[in-house]
């Protein structure tokens, strides 16, 4: 057996202390401004509701391209994230832009379905034009110890993705321990994930810094071993620019400069963009806007 295949143990207390240390970093002035712009550029603007409609998706896509036209020099978000049946609508709305389309798939969010249906779901997303596929792992199989099942499923879905990048959602809120998070990260990475992602946003807790740190460390170890970069996407629960900056500090101090782009790091969030816009507005005006100055799409 390859030595690198044994996931290292994780000490929860140590992880939490390290996170506390990131959070004492004081990000001021130009570092703060640039950090916020970068965070904005890393957002996967997301709508994943039962009541999603073409209208809702179109409006969100417009927002993705026009975050706040009164502030100069703003980037767009990285991507929009929708269900596979809305990919076509999003594709049309985002035509000609660099904003990517991510589609959740594989019986999102529970992942409780047959392999056949999951693969079909992925095919629909990809055929409709998704650039990225956000799959969920089978947490039930994982917790039952059927790691092979989880691995094979990810590998099969990676194959079905073709050239679309695959994000693998671990749903860490259901994995219970950081040791499990590390194990699931290693399985996903070795099975072919291009990105690993914390959560669906449907389960509490969603993304937390300790969980994200453990996943970043798994990415780091894989990179050290193979030279292959894997992306990271914390999703759900990150709603303030202060939190986003803390995640970026953690990213920088764990994986370094190379990962500091939306090619390798994303925030899955729906309300983070507006908080960043509020803070950017404050930097520009010296005072906080009313939140009514910021569009709610």
């Amino acid at each position, binding site marked *: *057996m390859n030595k690198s295949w044994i996931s290292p143990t*994780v000490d929860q207390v140590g992880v939490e202390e390290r996170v506390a240390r990131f959070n004492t970093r004081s990000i*001021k002035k130009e*570092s703060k401004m640039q950090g916020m712009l970068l965070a904005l550029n890393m957002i996967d603007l997301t709508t994943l509701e039962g009541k999603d409609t073409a209208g809702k998706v179109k409006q969100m896509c417009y927002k993705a391209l026009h975050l706040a036209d009164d502030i100069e020099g703003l980037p767009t978000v990285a991507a929009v994230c929708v269900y596979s049946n809305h990919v076509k609508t999003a594709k049309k709305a985002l035509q000609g832009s*660099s904003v990517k389309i991510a589609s959740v798939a594989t019986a999102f969010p529970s992942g409780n379905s047959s392999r056949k249906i999951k693969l079909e779901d992925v095919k629909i997303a990809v055929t409709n034009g998704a*650039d990225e596929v956000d799959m969920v792992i089978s947490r039930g199989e994982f917790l039952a110890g059927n*790691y092979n099942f989880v*691995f094979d499923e990810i590998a099969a879905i990676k194959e079905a993705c073709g050239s679309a990048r695959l994000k693998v959602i671990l749903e860490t809120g259901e994995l219970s321990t950081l040791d499990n998070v590390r194990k699931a990260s290693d399985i996903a990475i070795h099975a072919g994930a291009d990105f690993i992602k914390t959560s669906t946003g449907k389960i509490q807790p969603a993304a937390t810094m300790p969980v994200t740190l453990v996943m970043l460390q798994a990415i780091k170890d894989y990179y050290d071993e*193979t030279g292959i970069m894997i992306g990271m996407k914390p999703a759900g629960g990150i709603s303030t620019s202060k939190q986003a900056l803390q995640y970026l500090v953690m990213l920088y101090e764990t994986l370094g400069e190379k990962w*500091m782009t939306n090619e390798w790091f994303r925030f899955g969030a729906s309300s983070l963009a507006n908080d960043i816009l509020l803070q950017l507005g404050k930097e520009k005006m010296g005072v906080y806007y009313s939140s009514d100055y910021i569009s709610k799409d």
Partner: protein
Amino acid sequence: MSKSISKIKQVTKEKRQKSVKSPPTVAKRIASVSSESSVAKKTVGIFSSLAPAPESSDHIQLKSQYDLFINGKFVKPLSKIYYDTINPATGKKIASVAKGNEKDIDAAVKSANKAFESWSKTAPKERAKYIYRIARMIQERAREFAVIETMNGGKSIRESRDIDVPLAANHFFYYAGWADKLEYAFPNRNPKPIGVAGQIIPWNFPLLMAAWKLAPALATGNTVVLKPAESTPLTALKLAEIIQESGLPDGVVNIVTGFGDCGAALVNHPQINKIAFTGSTPVGKYIQKAIAGTNKKVTLELGGKAANIIFEDAPIDQAVEGIVNGIFFNQGHVCCAGSRLFIQENVAEKVIKKLKERMKTLIVGDPMDKNTDIGAVNSKEQLNKINHYIKLGQKEGAEIFQTDCAIPSNGFFCKPTLFIGTSQSHRIVQEEIFGPVLTIQTFRTIEEVIEKANNIPYGLSAGVWTDKGSKIFNLTTKLKAGVIWANTYNKFDPTSPFGGYKESGFGREGGVHGLLPYIKF
């Protein structure tokens, strides 16, 4: 994990590598992202040189000259001599401080002796009130204490703010609680105070060490003459101001600043009943010789050269954090610093690689910047000593590693340093350096590492990193060290006793055990 997975892993890995390298679509997509995203380009390097986040020093109150605190008043030294205390991060003078001598010590001891008559008879719960008050006043002025501690000692503001000052307040709170419960700590033994305690404290944790010494002495009904280290007297003198404001009866605490002769006078004074010393082993030996044949009680907390042991089954990323915290905390000016790293040979390469990378993210520089991880070395003499050992290590043939971090040109700074490939026979492994210098050795078996860890005249602390609880308990019974941390390092708490074996001293401070040196039955 099973074979079938390994097989698939191989297949998918090949696939992935292919897809990353060959299809033009992916490559094109990456290219288009980076060219379109001006943000990504602009923000490269945003966290490699953070915008300065200096803590303000506008709010602190410092006098230009400090006198001795004797019998509840600030009095001029009999010698009329003052010396400069400096900021080690800039080399500039902060204030002048009284240079106490033998006569000042005599006055202080006499005032403490007089105060003992009534203080020892004060109702314990009344004693507790004063100690609680001091604790609260430290909390109220925490920010001021943190800034002065950093200015005078060179440690980063993050540490003085988050560790030194809160812990100092906590020690007073903790021992205030014991004051009226001593009979429960020592049932049926009728504990009584000893008398006048002479306390000599070091420069690495000036306020915290003052708290460690004062709090249990006061709680048990003793009076005190405290001598701060000559290079870092300011927070102790600020504490004297608080003690004065708190209304603690005159003479219960006296603080005499000065040099070695002043400390010697304190040790040799006939009316001292107990010596508590934290500092170097040579001075500890001097003290023991000096008090031989007297009735003085003594506790010594001296040097250390702790083993920090990483087993193959350790949580590696957290262990790396523990190594960093063990040796680079307070610029390595920590008697219990994990300065000898032992790594099980089969994970050594991995741990050292990760350690080096982690060291690259450490920010060395202005201690007043909130982002600084490693501040200034406490004094020029100490920096010279550390540099001597760094040269020695290279001469001894150990492989040196330092990050290429920028360090300020003024003041006393030292880059975090590793020595790789060392053995027990290296002098840098045997002698206490008291700086940010870590020696690394490898080991194969538990027996081997226990033998090496104990093969040193010191025995203050040790660290063990493993996922196995049984291994931890096995080691804690066999390592000759007063404090052993498991899967963490440099953790301090008022409830936990601290102290050494062998040449690291004897007696315990903190916890119930910390009361014992200050009472008789």
